[in-house]
């Protein structure tokens, strides 16, 4: 059975790009438009990995990571942040909060897949 990945981003074009790339590679994708949407879709979804943007309305990426790490059932789900070079302090904050790693935007589809494969094994 293919692994399920959640893609969290408030940008529709980013979600489309990430989703398309992952589906082409055989993964199942659950999309969420922000942290709040992600939290509401997570329960019982069987998600194996989360890719999240940081700067989002309602619940941002850092807060999402914090809430997931505080939840025993989500404590060990790999979370990879999608950041930009202009946010070095956010990257550090995300790491401290419990993110597994990050990918710097803009990235190529093959870079995304390389990280996903490395994390999911």
């Amino acid at each position, binding site marked *: 059975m293919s692994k399920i990945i959640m893609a969290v981003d*408030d*940008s*529709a*074009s*980013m979600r*489309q*790009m990430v989703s*398309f790339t992952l589906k082409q590679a055989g993964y199942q994708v659950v999309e969420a438009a922000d942290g709040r949407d992600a939290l509401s879709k997570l329960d019982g979804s069987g998600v194996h990995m989360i890719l999240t*943007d940081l*700067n*989002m*309305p309602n619940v941002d990426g850092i807060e999402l990571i914090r809430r997931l790490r505080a939840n025993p059932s989500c404590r060990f789900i790999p979370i990879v942040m999608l950041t*930009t070079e*202009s946010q070095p302090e956010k990257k550090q904050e995300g790491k401290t909060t419990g993110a597994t790693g990050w990918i710097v*935007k*803009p*990235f190529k589809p093959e870079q995304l897949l390389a990280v996903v494969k490395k994390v999911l094994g």
Partner: protein
Amino acid sequence: MESLRETYRAEAYELLAELEASLLVLEEDPGDTELIGRVFRALHTIKGSGAMCGFDDIATFTHDVETVFDLVRNEKLGVTKTLVD
């Protein structure tokens, strides 16, 4: 790729409209931090997703504007009429 660029185009128009509306209100109420956050987020998405879709000129230009708004967000620069214009 074409469909991705189309999605970006629609998204960018939407964000630009939101940006314009937010800036107009911000001019009247320069201390509204929620609004400043919204402006920053719109710029950030136009930049980040633009770069992902291969629109490098848009990304470079927006990056400069975003840098200025980051100063505003961190209260190192005030909102003035010149800035909004």
